[in-house]
């Protein structure tokens, strides 16, 4: 077998080994992480799970920071304004 192919075998051996070691470690860490999360915050986890069914979590956890605020609040505000105006106009037409 030539040097080139040997280099390839070498690469494959170490490479594949590394990939497996990495993902085995990741399995372990993930299980550890999930266990800790589930042990130390069972109620919170449940609450959040429900939350994520009921509504988009982003909605509840939305930041109120400067950059974020305008785009949503304003839209919301504009919609409300439009709806209010429409209702008002409609009412005035009824009177």
């Amino acid at each position, binding site marked *: 077998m030539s040097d080139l*192919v040997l280099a390839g075998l070498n690469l494959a051996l170490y490479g594949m080994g590394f990939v497996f070691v990495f993902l085995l470690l990741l399995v372990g860490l993930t299980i550890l992480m999930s266990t800790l*999360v589930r042990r130390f915050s069972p109620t919170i986890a*449940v609450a959040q799970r429900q939350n994520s069914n009921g509504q988009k979590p982003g909605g509840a956890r939305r930041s109120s920071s400067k950059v974020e605020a305008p785009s949503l609040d304003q839209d919301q505000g504009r919609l409300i304004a439009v709806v209010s105006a429409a209702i008002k106009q409609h009412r005035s037409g009824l009177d």
Partner: protein
Amino acid sequence: MNQLVELWQSTGLYQIEADQFLMLVISGLLLYLAISKKFEPLLLLPIGFGGLLANIPGVDIAVGQGILAQFYAIGLQTTIFPLLIFLGVGAMTDFGPLLANPKTLLLGAAAQFGIFATVIGALLLSDLGLFEFSVRQAAAIGIIGGADGPTAIYVAGILAPELLGAIAVAAYSYMALVPLIQPPIMRALTTEKERRIEMTQLRAVSQREKILFPLVLLVLVGLVIPSAAPLLGMFCLGNLMKESGVVDRLSKTAQNALINIVTIMLGLAVGSKLVADQFLVPETLGIMALGIVAFSIGTASGVLMAKVMNAFSTNKVNPLIGAAGVSAVPMAARVANKLGIEANPHNFLLMHAMGPNVAGVIGSAVAAGVLIQIVG
């Protein structure tokens, strides 16, 4: 009159050469596959169109100060484009199924054997004198077996930019062909009984786990294989932006405007490598052949790994989902689901297969890091 002659000599018709014409046909074929056959059109349409532009004679589009050459310099030489794509893909990825069943990560590891087997294969072909692939080139070709477009482009851009065009085309074409390539291999390696295995429903995963996972992954990458950190780092950032729920507007932009803009430019930049003198070389045929081998071996090793896991565990997995470990999200998971339903109409494997599917993305990125580390 001289001016008329000059104008005529400036036409493409006067200047075109046979190999440019052939490249135009090949680019047209890519467009046909993208549009009519819906082969990964998001990438193959701009790549194919970039190929057309790159082979128009008499004007610098893919070289010099041409716009495709500039996109290449701005985004591929710098690795910025594939990394931004990874950011967006991370923001689209749901690790829920993986977190519900972490051992499916191992299926994503096994399927990467396609990468390394192909590296050996490429070097064997060189040894036989059929091609002259260097070790760096062999590594870049192997990554096609990762079944992950941006990873392949990232690695090829670093290890073997001269093969980038062929590698990207092979990667995306075969990703589109997953529904044809995988089923016969999956059927051959599993019994009817195995394909009928039903899996228990996945547990609910809390938001906190989903937030912590990309951080755990990043820390592990940083400690174990730093060369995979740019790729997996951007991937984890995208995922964290999505799962944290506190930067929704950033996450949405990463999933839409940003990834779309980058996809257009990335496709055109890859297309700039479809010039005749770089693409019409024997190596391209070797790459296309090795690429399909890589996909096949990856599929097989994923399935076999699932069977090995079943031998050691009472909580059986359906070996079909092992095939999803090659990446090619979400196509490979759909293929597994389809074969599962064929064998057993009550067998919904889609969510189960999403675990190994996203594990395959992590696996390929780790393999990419190892290759860059060792031969880069």
